[in-house]
């Protein structure tokens, strides 16, 4: 099979925040380290991981909308060229679209319709929006309302519609479905899948592993700001085919797989343990885990663990 063209290649990406401690002493807070994700044409990549593992920061980093005290490192390569600030500015909203995590991203002072059409009034964009809204069970009157007049689920659907308006090459969906019921989640997911099948790359950031597995081609697992596993979605059918102990723990935590949990919490970036960040919670933990852990190829996937086989 012919290797598909890479749309976005994220290499050794890092984000750190500059913070003031007592007085004027500055410290860097490295929230994302050693992150590698590749998205190809027609591919849907799901990023799963615990809250606070830096998933949303990745999305905002790609679009260049991180807060001013954040510093990015590593490389973002879009369409074979380095993604610079200028390119980010030109591409976002056109070729690269974001479905943001919070309904607070909608402009509260602008009516829904004009907001989603970005002010365009021509017949074509009107009809397109009507069509999209119909698909999401939103009545046409909704376009004349303000965001605060809609329910949480309706605002969600409005946010998702923004991605369907243009002809995006890369869609970044940051937790697009919480607050939606199952049937609607499926519909939204199938629309993202359609976008991918038409050739766009889709990066789906979520913690709903079940949904991700239904539609995505690949799953990237985040833990404490780094990628621990990059696996085919099929590998999540059983615990044995997974590689990293954290991915296995995620699998076991699904209600239908026993609803088991592991002790402890994800470490705060300031007091990360040496070596493997998952080490203190891991049953495989040994001396070897205290060193630098690099990514390895194991059974066709990539994993950041010395013990994985």
């Amino acid at each position, binding site marked *: 099979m012919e290797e598909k063209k890479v749309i976005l290649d994220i290499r050794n990406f890092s984000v750190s925040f500059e913070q003031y401690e007592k007085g004027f002493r500055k410290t860097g807070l490295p929230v994302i380290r050693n992150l590698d994700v590749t998205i190809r044409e027609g591919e849907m990549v799901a990023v*799963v*991981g*615990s*809250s*606070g*593992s830096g998933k949303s920061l990745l999305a905002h980093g790609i679009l260049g909308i991180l807060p001013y005290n954040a510093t990015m490192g590593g490389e973002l390569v879009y369409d074979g060229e380095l993604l610079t600030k200028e390119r980010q500015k030109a591409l976002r909203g056109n070729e690269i679209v974001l479905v943001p995590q919070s309904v607070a991203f909608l402009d509260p002072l602008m009516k829904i319709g004009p907001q989603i059409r970005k002010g365009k009034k021509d017949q074509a964009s009107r009809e397109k929006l009507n069509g999209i809204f119909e698909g999401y069970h939103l009545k046409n009157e909704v376009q004349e309302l303000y965001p605060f007049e809609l*329910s*949480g*689920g*309706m605002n*969600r659907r409005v946010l998702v519609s923004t991605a369907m308006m243009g002809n995006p090459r890369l869609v970044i969906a940051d937790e697009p479905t*919480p*607050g*939606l*019921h*199952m*049937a*609607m*989640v499926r519909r939204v997911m199938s629309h993202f899948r359609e976008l991918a099948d038409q050739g766009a790359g889709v990066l789906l950031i979520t*913690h709903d*592993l*079940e949904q991700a597995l239904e539609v995505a081609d690949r799953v990237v697992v985040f833990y404490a700001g780094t990628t621990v596993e990059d696996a085919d979605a099929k590998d999540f059918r059983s615990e044995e085919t997974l590689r990293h102990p954290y991915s296995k*723990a*995620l699998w076991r*935590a*699904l*209600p*239908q797989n026993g*609803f*088991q*949990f*592991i002790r402890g*919490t994800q470490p705060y970036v300031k007091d990360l343990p040496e070596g493997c960040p998952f080490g203190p919670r891991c049953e495989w933990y040994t001396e070897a885990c205290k060193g630098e852990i690099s990514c390895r190829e194991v059974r066709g996937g990539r994993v950041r663990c010395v013990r994985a086989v």
Partner: protein
Amino acid sequence: MVLEAKNISFQYGRDTKQILENFSLRMESHERVGIVAPSGFGKTTFCKILSGYEKPDGGEVLLDGKPLSSYGRYCPVQMIWQHPEQVVNPRLRMREVLKQGDEIEEYIVEGLGIEEDWKNRFPAEISGGEMQRFCIARALGRRTRFLLADEISTMLDLITQSQIWSFLIGEVERREIGLLAVSHSMPLLESVCTRIIDLEHL
């Protein structure tokens, strides 16, 4: 104890859609009831009515045959909200947020995995998952008899979800607290609840 909602009707404002119409539910304190429905069906509104945050246009809510208002300052029906960041005072440290309700026993705070140094932070300095643990602890006061969990775990990762749920199930069983769980996830409700109600196909 028995929590009863009798023929509840509700709408926000006069010209809007009727959200709840003649809806009734009866649950006992040893039960764990799950509710599923599409968004906009009034699940949150129903929880708000059950816990006294909203007055129904018609019908009544009774706890052991008496209205909620007869139970003094602390309502025995407590609600855990879907968005914890919207229900904590941003100017209070988490330590003070915990003290806002009834007296809370220390093992609850520990069992939910709340760490000592989180308590000194302000709401803006902790993550959603951490804040939700505080909100759950706050709702588990000594006099709580019914707990309404409105999509409390959608924003949490899987491991935190199972951690919190297994603690909650243990706690409500031990203290015979009735639990009403609202969620979109069928597998979750099936493993948490003793009875599931689908509002769409009633």
